[in-house]
């Protein structure tokens, strides 16, 4: 036994949180001895560098034999097991050493290292128990669930009852059912049915009573009762909700991976590092987030989303592989491990597939299967196909062929069944079945159709990039601001349109369709550039709708030529690249025409022609020119011959004359 005072003293010396330790297992006060605890802590902290938080989670390690712990650690360190897995399952170190070794060898021989990694705690279970459960339930349970059953504290009889209850109620037998007795499972099923909660694995983290409380708290706070809420008790959920509301964090699934306290710490770290507080950050504890932030900063990786699905070490490995293979480090690479990325790169290179984001949604083997299916069906291997498995792609292709739907990227946003529903809705409403309809579900399409009909909006492509609600808002914004409802207004959300309208009003820019091709931010960027360099009179939609990069090349050139002013009247010239403008102006000058029309009404029409028309004109000109040159060359040659002939004749005449004079003198 050890007194609270003495235990607190130890905790203070070793940097352990006394409250957490005792909360996790108060038996430490009954079974712990001062000397043994210190000896074990010396070993764990100083020799094997176990993190304090893992010791706090496993107080029982502190009242077992230090020698045994040391022997087990040595054995496992030399074996095929990751010590990070042992660290998070410290109680296995208190297993009798011989038994630990037997279990380790048995699992490695009969299950494989994957199971050891997934269920490291199985190492504290004797082989005899594992075998007993295998014999009894080998036909009903998958391997991992055999191990989970073995790891549970249930007798074999109780496990049998649990399996039977699950089978009677058609509950998939996952590991979590073994957290409960058969009786408890029956109560839980009843409560779930009353409250229309799917009976998934996580509900078994809680008792039936707890589930009822959780449901009540969720209803009071309008939180959907999804699996993740069952990670927490009802009281914890209430605290979490309070913290989320205080910090304006949406109460989504991932927040329930953390305690309210942890959430507050995470929020603070995110604010310090200017990280958007999205669901994904809650996958990690604060210390891990800080490591990840450091690694991302060192490697200039945006700190968002998927990076939090990996540890800092894993991120570093992935970055290394990406750099070696010249792959841009985008969010999707973090779906995969470094080794997997290397295999994927190899497969993509063999099949000449561009290594873009979506390929990392799949493993290398899956990619090969998909490539095969795409080649068989002559489907271009674009990014979107990797959203589906090879089997799903085949079903989709079949449905598209039956309904004569062009197989474009967007069909792969949906399953084959969804496509069939969409096709039905489109046919009922006489909507052409083109790419954008697959951005929506059949139900959403029906809603959109209704809203469009109410507002007399044609039901074509751009409306399907928005929800029905969004369309209504957009129509409202357009009406408020007297903007004609053209196709372009649906390119942006209602909020973005409001921003665009605001920017245009502030800068006195005419609000026409082409303005909505740009975001408010892009418009502001263009406005700033043009105003600073050329003046406000150039802030017209025809100019502003172009890319900032293109404007920065073409406008200075036109200014240099002294024709920039014409752009205000006729911006068509800006639909050409700089090189094209230069070429056409060169041509105009060659043929002796002015760059600007003589009446000043616009640019020479050559600068407004389509590329095809211009190329044809140049070709014709070159043909005529070469004909003329040919003719002229011939004429020159003929003239020169005549002239030469004359000269020669002259020369001859002179020579003859000289000869005559000479002869006469000789005579």
């Amino acid at each position, binding site marked *: 036994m050890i007194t609270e005072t003495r235990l607190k003293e130890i905790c203070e010396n070793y940097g352990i949180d006394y409250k957490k330790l005792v909360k996790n297992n108060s038996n430490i006060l009954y079974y712990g001895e001062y000397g043994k605890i210190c000896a074990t802590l010396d070993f764990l902290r100083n020799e094997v560098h176990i993190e304090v938080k893992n010791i706090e989670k496993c107080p029982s390690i502190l009242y077992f034999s230090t020698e045994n712990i040391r022997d087990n650690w040595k054995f496992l360190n030399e074996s095929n097991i990751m010590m990070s897995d042992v660290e998070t399952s410290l109680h296995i170190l208190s297993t009798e050493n011989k038994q630990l070794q037997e279990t380790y060898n048995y699992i490695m021989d009969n299950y494989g290292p994957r199971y050891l990694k997934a269920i490291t705690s199985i190492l504290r279970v004797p082989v005899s128990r594992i075998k007993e459960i295998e014999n009894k339930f080998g036909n009903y349970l998958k391997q991992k669930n055999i191990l989970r059953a073995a790891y549970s504290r249930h007798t074999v009889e109780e496990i049998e009852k649990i399996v039977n209850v699950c089978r009677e109620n058609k509950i998939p037998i996952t590991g979590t059912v073994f957290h409960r007795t058969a009786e408890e499972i029956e109560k839980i099923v009843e409560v779930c049915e009353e409250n229309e909660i799917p009976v998934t694995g996580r509900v078994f983290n809680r008792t039936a009573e707890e589930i009822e409380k959780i449901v009540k708290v969720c209803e009071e706070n309008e939180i959907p009762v999804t699996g993740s809420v069952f990670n927490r008790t009802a009281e914890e959920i209430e605290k979490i909700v309070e913290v989320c509301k205080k910090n304006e964090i949406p109460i989504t699934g991932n927040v329930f991976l953390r305690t309210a306290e942890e959430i507050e710490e995470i929020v603070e770290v995110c604010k310090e590092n200017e990280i958007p507080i999205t669901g994904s950050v809650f996958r990690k504890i604060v210390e891990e987030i800080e490591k990840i932030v450091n690694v991302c900063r060192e490697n200039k990786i945006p700190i968002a989303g998927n990076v939090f699905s990996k540890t800092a070490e894993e991120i570093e490995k992935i970055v290394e592989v990406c750099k070696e293979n010249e792959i841009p480090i985008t969010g999707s690479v973090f779906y995969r491990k470094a080794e997997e990325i290397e295999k994927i790169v190899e497969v993509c290179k063999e099949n000449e597939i561009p290594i873009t984001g979506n390929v990392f949604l799949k493993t290398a083997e899956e990619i090969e299967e998909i490539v095969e299916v795409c080649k068989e069906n002559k489907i271009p291997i674009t990014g979107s196909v990797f959203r589906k498995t090879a089997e799903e792609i085949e079903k989709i292709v079949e449905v598209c062929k039956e309904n004569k739907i062009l197989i474009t990227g967007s069909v792969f946003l949906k399953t084959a069944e969804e496509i069939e529903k969409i096709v039905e809705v489109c046919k009922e409403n006489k909507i052409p079945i083109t790419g954008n309809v697959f951005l929506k579900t059949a139900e959403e399409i029906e809603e959109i159709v209704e809203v469009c009909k109410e507002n007399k909006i044609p039901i074509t492509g751009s409306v399907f990039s928005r929800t029905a609600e969004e369309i209504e808002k957009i129509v409202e914004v357009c009406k408020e601001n007297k903007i004609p409802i053209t196709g372009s207004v649906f390119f942006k959300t209602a909020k973005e349109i409001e921003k665009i309208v605001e920017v245009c009003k502030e800068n006195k820019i005419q609000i026409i369709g082409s303005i909505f091709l740009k975001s408010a931010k892009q418009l502001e960027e263009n406005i700033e550039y043009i105003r600073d360099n050329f003046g406000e009179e150039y802030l017209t939609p025809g100019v502003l709708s172009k*890319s900032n990069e293109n404007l920065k090349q073409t406008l200075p050139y036109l200014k240099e030529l002294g024709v920039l002013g014409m752009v205000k009247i006729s*911006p068509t010239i800006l639909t050409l690249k700089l090189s094209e403008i230069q070429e056409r102006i060169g041509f105009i000058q060659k043929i002796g025409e002015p760059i600007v029309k003589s009446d000043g009404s616009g640019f020479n029409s050559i600068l*407004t*022609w*389509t590329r*095809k*028309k211009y190329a044809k004109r140049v070709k014709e000109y070159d043909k005529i020119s070469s004909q003329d040159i040919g003719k002229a060359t011939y004429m020159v040659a003929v003239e020169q011959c005549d002239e030469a002939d004359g000269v020669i004749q002259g020369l001859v005449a002179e020579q003859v004359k000289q000869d005559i004079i000479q002869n006469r003198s000789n005579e």
Partner: protein
Amino acid sequence: MEININSEVISDIYGDDVLDVILNNTDIIEKNADILKKYNFKDIEGIFEMYPTLFMNFPKQFKEKIEKLHKKYGENFSEIIENDLSILEEIDE
């Protein structure tokens, strides 16, 4: 009428974001291209490259705009416009 979209040109002149919008709205573009075809325009793809924004109008509105030019410039209006595409600025709004 199917339009071959010159992605590089659109991206250079208008930016990738506009290219994305265009690629997601090919149904409207193709309907409007059909309208121009009926009016005997020859290089419709070329016109689209110069005025993609015009093709983003709903077909009914697009037709009304083209008709406006038809009335103004007469029967040969397609030829007149193809000789000076800046005329389309009058309706690109």
